[in-house]
């Protein structure tokens, strides 16, 4: 009975493991094969590295190296926005947690409301707003809205409100530190875990955002990789037979598309693998045993 239970349990866990991982494995193997071999050979067979090189050659040649530009754009948007987010939201969380100025509750509630609201709901009004400011089509129309990250403020607020003893900060003040010095020398170094957490959430959500740049940008040279991938998909005859000339003119087929998808997630995958533990510890707080 016990052995049976264990068997059922393992079977369920393994089935889900296959569901979660098989597509990833397929994606890793796809660029090693030709478009034809993808159909004829076994889905999980390995081709050779020459095909990866060939797929990259085709992908890189697409529309005058635009793929490189998409990756560089995304890095630029996500890193600048995350840098602003960190500089703005960690001090804000600190001020909200330890301050007692009038309007503190109001700022806190507004932050919570906007945080729970899905980002996509505000994209259209933000477009109109930035349109009035003549910012549409500039990289600021992406970076500034990305840089507003209420979840980061909330995380920093929670951390300072619960994990940092007020006495410690008061001691620093008694020792003659000014408000700014107290923050920079005592409060900020203590907040390393929360800085890492805000970086993770902000970077990943900026990297994966599709709707906002889709609305704001018209020039494909400015696209981030998410919108770029959708653009690439529209140019391949594999899923779009209406593309002229059987796609020979663009040379984007399934292996190229798979490679493009794979390279597009490398930075996020790195951040993801590094962050699993910190994520749990930060969110659930303490008590995590491995």
């Amino acid at each position, binding site marked *: 009975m016990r052995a049976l239970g264990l068997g059922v349990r393992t079977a369920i866990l393994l089935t889900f493991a296959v569901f979660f991982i098989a597509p990833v494995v397929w994606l890793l193997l796809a660029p090693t094969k030709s478009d034809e071999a993808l159909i004829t050979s076994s889905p999980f067979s390995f081709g050779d590295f020459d095909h990866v090189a060939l797929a990259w050659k085709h992908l890189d040649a697409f529309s005058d190296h635009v793929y490189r530009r998409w990756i560089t754009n995304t890095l630029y948007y996500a890193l600048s926005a995350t840098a602003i987010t960190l500089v703005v939201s960690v001090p804000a969380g600190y001020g909200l947690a330890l301050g007692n100025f009038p309007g503190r509750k109001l700022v806190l509630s507004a932050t919570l409301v906007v945080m729970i609201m*899905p980002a996509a709901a505000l994209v*259209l009004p933000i477009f109109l707003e930035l349109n009035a400011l003549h910012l549409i089509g500039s990289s600021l129309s992406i970076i500034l809205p990305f840089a507003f990250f209420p979840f980061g403020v909330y995380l920093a607020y929670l951390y300072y409100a619960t994990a940092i003893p007020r006495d410690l900060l008061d001691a620093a003040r008694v020792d003659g530190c000014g408000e700014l010095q107290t923050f920079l020398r005592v409060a900020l170094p203590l907040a390393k875990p929360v800085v890492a957490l805000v970086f993770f959430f902000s970077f990943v959500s900026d990297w994966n955002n599709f709707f906002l740049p889709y609305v704001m940008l018209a020039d494909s040279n400015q696209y981030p990789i998410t919108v770029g991938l959708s653009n690439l998909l529209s140019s391949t005859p594999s899923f779009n037979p209406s593309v002229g000339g059987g796609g020979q003119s663009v040379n984007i087929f399934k292996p190229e598309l798979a490679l493009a998808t794979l390279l597009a997630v490398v930075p996020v995958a790195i951040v993801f693998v590094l962050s699993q533990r910190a994520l749990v510890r930060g969110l659930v707080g303490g008590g995590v045993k491995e």
Partner: protein
Amino acid sequence: MGATRKRGPQLRGLPFVLPYLPFLILFGIAPMVYALDLAFTDAGGGWVGVDNFTRTYNDFRFMPAMKHVLIYTTVWLGALMVFVVALALLLHGRASRASSTFRFLYYLPGALAGAAAVLVWLFMLDPTVSPASFLLHHVLGADFFAQSIAPGNLPYLFAMMAFWTGAGGWIVVMYGALNTIPPDLEQAARIDGANAIQIALRLKLPLIRKWIAYMLILSFATGTQLFVEPEIVQHASFGLVPDTWSANQLAYQLAFRFADFNGAAAIAVDLLAIGLIGAVVIVMRTGLFRADD
């Protein structure tokens, strides 16, 4: 209250918050107020009451789009609630090496959120290249890509994509939450003769209720905003999938193709209201803010 500190403690903390305020106002509060204002006015700015709401409601594309989003969100939330909780419970109290490997495997697809996940699943749904072509044939009855993405399948397929990318992160969080349960409690239950299933359902489950509610609220609100998945699939659908498949897509089309920002805002407000009602229902049903938590 230390009211005698130098430099007026009434303002303590404010300088740290100041740089954040322009962002909060410009990209949080103003767009929210603006959306509300647009939803109740016409293109000239005149008050029109609920006119935009009735007009978009009567649009022939409105009900199908809402229905799609509703089915998608229901299926996705159901899958999250059942499988995330079940898998976290199954993983908890297992040899920790195996458990952490499983958690990592489940969590990994999260790196492919959004557009990348859609592309991966387009391949998985294409019977000519998919490793699961037998499933496509037997479950969906599909031998061609166009049959896989038949309109009736789409809400379920999108729910599956969302589950694939998001479930692992929540499993990791639930597992972490389960670890905060004191071991003595489990010990006591075992001494009282409870078996593993009883401990999971009667002891562990109620203790992570707060996290389940949290997951459902966030997912419900995000689910109603579905945009990227149908938008990308529409590009690859041979014209089978309309560009107004989801409610958010309809809002996008109204705004950018028909320059009807008021109608678009009305739909955005509809979605927010639905998200809010959903959150309230979930809070009431799960007792998220019950005093004894």
